[in-house]
């Protein structure tokens, strides 16, 4: 019945129809409900069953553990004595409005641009719309979410021509916008406030006292490795649980939606740099230098950034070799920013944006190497 209803109004949205302009909207709804009827017009006459909707929805599915844990953790951080269900309900109260706002504002921007620029409504927003809330602290004012989402989608993506053409990850652009535009209102990774309760995040704690040791500082604030691995710590909604992110990573790797080269590269870069820093730490009063790699891995949004942000295919390197270097750069930069730059305790976001900017340059070198190899074999 739904099918016949859609078919009956189709001609009004097609060229010459009454609502011709809104065809992208019709198309989005039509192909959302039913698989498209487009057939091949040329060789190859058959195609794989995968499409962009499937790929994108798989990224969202991979985020589910992080979303669920994040919602629970909002309540847990507020009052750890409540039951799991109560914590979850408490968390929903904070998380749902943020998610709704992000999808609504982003969806409107996406559809508006699709109509004006006459391109299709791209499924990429399914992912961006969920990533943005997960990078937000739960106490963020909703209007800020709206402004940031609009900024991320328009400046981060649409002005470049839409999904596939953007240079920077739209969700990270939104996050960075908030980070720099409202530094006093949004505490982000620094402090966690729900109902006026403020707690320093582990990253801030580890960097808090000059001349001390990061692990001592962490244990003095009662942050254990296990606690940070499982995610019972303050932080942005989706980033706290490394375990939840790793479950998502496993899903993305098994389904081959995310590229393993970026993840391995990023981890290697982080391990390499933090080990070097550990050797240097006796010569410095900076407590962050002594932080071992496995702590870097579970603190802040390292795992979250690695699994969901760095692997975003459009803004990463487009060559397999380049993906290694791209990952390495993020890993190295993360540790450098975290340890050496006192203004930004969390380095992952900036490191990924930095690597986004360098991805085309990395590819350029990979191409030059390929070209040189071709010239040499004569």
């Amino acid at each position, binding site marked *: 019945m739904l099918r016949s209803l859609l078919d009956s109004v189709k001609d009004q949205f097609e060229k010459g129809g009454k609502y011709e302009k809104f065809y992208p909207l019709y198309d989005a709804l039509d192909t959302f409900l039913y*698989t*498209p009827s487009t057939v091949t017009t040329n060789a190859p006459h058959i195609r794989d069953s995968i499409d*962009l909707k499937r*790929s994108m929805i798989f990224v969202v599915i991979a985020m589910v553990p992080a979303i669920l844990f994040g919602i629970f953790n909002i309540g847990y951080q507020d009052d750890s004595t409540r039951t799991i269900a109560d914590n979850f309900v408490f968390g929903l109260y904070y998380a749902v409005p943020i998610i709704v706002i992000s999808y609504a504002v982003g969806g409107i921007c996406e559809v508006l641009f699709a109509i004006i620029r006459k391109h299709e409504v791209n499924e990429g927003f399914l992912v961006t719309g969920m990533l943005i809330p997960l990078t937000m602290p739960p106490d963020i004012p909703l209007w800020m979410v709206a402004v940031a989402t609009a900024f991320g989608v328009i400046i981060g993506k649409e002005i470049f021509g839409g*999904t596939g053409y953007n240079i920077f990850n739209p969700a990270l652009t939104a996050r960075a916008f908030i980070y720099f535009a409202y530094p006093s209102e949004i505490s982000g990774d620094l402090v966690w406030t729900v109902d006026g309760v403020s707690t320093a995040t582990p990253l801030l704690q580890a960097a808090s006292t000059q001349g001390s040791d990061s692990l001592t500082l962490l244990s003095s604030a009662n942050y254990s490795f296990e606690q940070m691995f499982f995610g019972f710590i303050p932080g942005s909604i989706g980033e706290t649980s490394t375990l939840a992110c790793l479950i998502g990573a496993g899903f993305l790797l098994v389904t*081959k939606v995310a590229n393993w080269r970026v993840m391995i590269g990023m981890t290697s870069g982080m391990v390499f740099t933090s080990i070097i820093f550990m050797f240097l730490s006796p010569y410095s009063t900076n407590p962050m230098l002594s932080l071992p790699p496995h702590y870097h891995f579970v603190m802040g949004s390292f795992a979250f950034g690695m699994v969901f942000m760095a692997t975003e295919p459009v803004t990463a390197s487009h060559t397999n070799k380049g993906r290694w270097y791209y990952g390495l750069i993020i890993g190295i930069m993360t540790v450098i920013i975290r340890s050496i730059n006192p203004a930004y305790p969390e380095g992952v976001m900036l490191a990924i944006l930095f690597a986004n900017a360098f991805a085309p340059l990395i590819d350029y070198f990979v*191409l030059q190497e*390929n*070209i040189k190899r071709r010239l040499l074999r004569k």
Partner: protein
Amino acid sequence: MNVININKGLDIPINGAPSNTIEDMSNSITIILHPSKISGIKPKLTCKIDDEVKIGTELFHDKSDPTISFVSNCSGKIKNIVLGERRALDEIKIENDNLNTQFKEYKSYKSSEINSINKDTLVNILKESGNWTYIRQRPFSKIADSKKMPKAVFVSCFNSAPHALNTNLLFDNNKKNALQTGINALCKISGLNYINLSIRSNQDLNFFNSLYNVNLNIVNGPHPAGNVGIQIHKINPINVGESIWYIDFQDLLAIGDFLNSGKIINTKIISISGEQLVNPTHCKILKGTVIKNIIKDDLDLIKSRIVSGNILTGSISNIERGIEYYDSQICVVPNNGGRHFLGWLMPGFDKYTNSNTYLSKIIKNKTWSLNTLINGSYRTIIPFGYWEDVLPLDVIPQYLVKSILAEDIEEMENLGIYECHEEDFALCTFVCQSKFPVQEVIKKGLMLMEKEV
């Protein structure tokens, strides 16, 4: 002997594979040639309606080299000639009288005698008899230029495309002489000491090892390992300004047979496949046979698409057309497959995919029903890296495609366009989640390049 193992690629398990029996259908009444579809030539008609023709009578030739003849494969009468847009020579229809008379008798040679023939004489025999047209060159896949010698000659002795002709059906020990004759002839006309043969490890190694003037390569791996372009790339890649000749294994045998016997080989063995066919099989046909004489099933023509060539690279055809000049395969594909509610959300046990995004992936050893649906919507390129997984070339497809779209000739050349042929990129299009027509873009790039050169 070299062994080359190719890891990247994909064998798509499709329903309706052909059986290994050969049905004789070489008494077809109607032969149709489609000259305008032969890439790289400008056909000039040399016959007219109602002409009586024999096997070997010239029908048309290439304007740029009039010595390259395309000849009739049967004796009979020209029934119809159809000119298309801008007077393109779309169709020559011949009615076969089944008398099999030959236009001209050619001298027969033993394989050992080939070397003593004058090179130009041999070239002229091949050109006049229509056999030269089967020798093609890369880059650009057009008929070989007899004035410019290649740096190597390649023959792929197996096909890896879905349901492609099983070349093991083409030869036994009796064919050794013909094959050796063909090889010697290729060496003679190209001025080379040996030609490159590629076989799969499951082929008769002793048979191929006993041949002379051959550099034998064993190439293992999934499709497109059988594509000659991939083998050239792995063994002796084409650099700027170089050319390589290649010929289908079956056509090489035909040239050998022709030189041995003096008789033009007017038949070929092809595979016919597809799940809608009652009996997908191999059959022996006259070259250019009209498809309705080959596929006799009662097909629903709206619900099925007939493809001349393989399902990944062939062209859309119909039962009234002849099989295309270089094709040795016809497949029937179910057309459209209906619309499914929330298909992107379903587990998809019945949907074939090379990615791991449908649960069908856990079912092994099954063949699948694939239809002409693109299974998605056209989107911009999102580089998930799926293309690279099925492309065994040292070429960076993302950037090659971008340079072609930007029509940047120099960059295309740098990124290795000369080593590419659209058929090698068919799998990239197949696996692409954005349904991006990689194959078409590569073809466009080659056309741009050819104009430029």
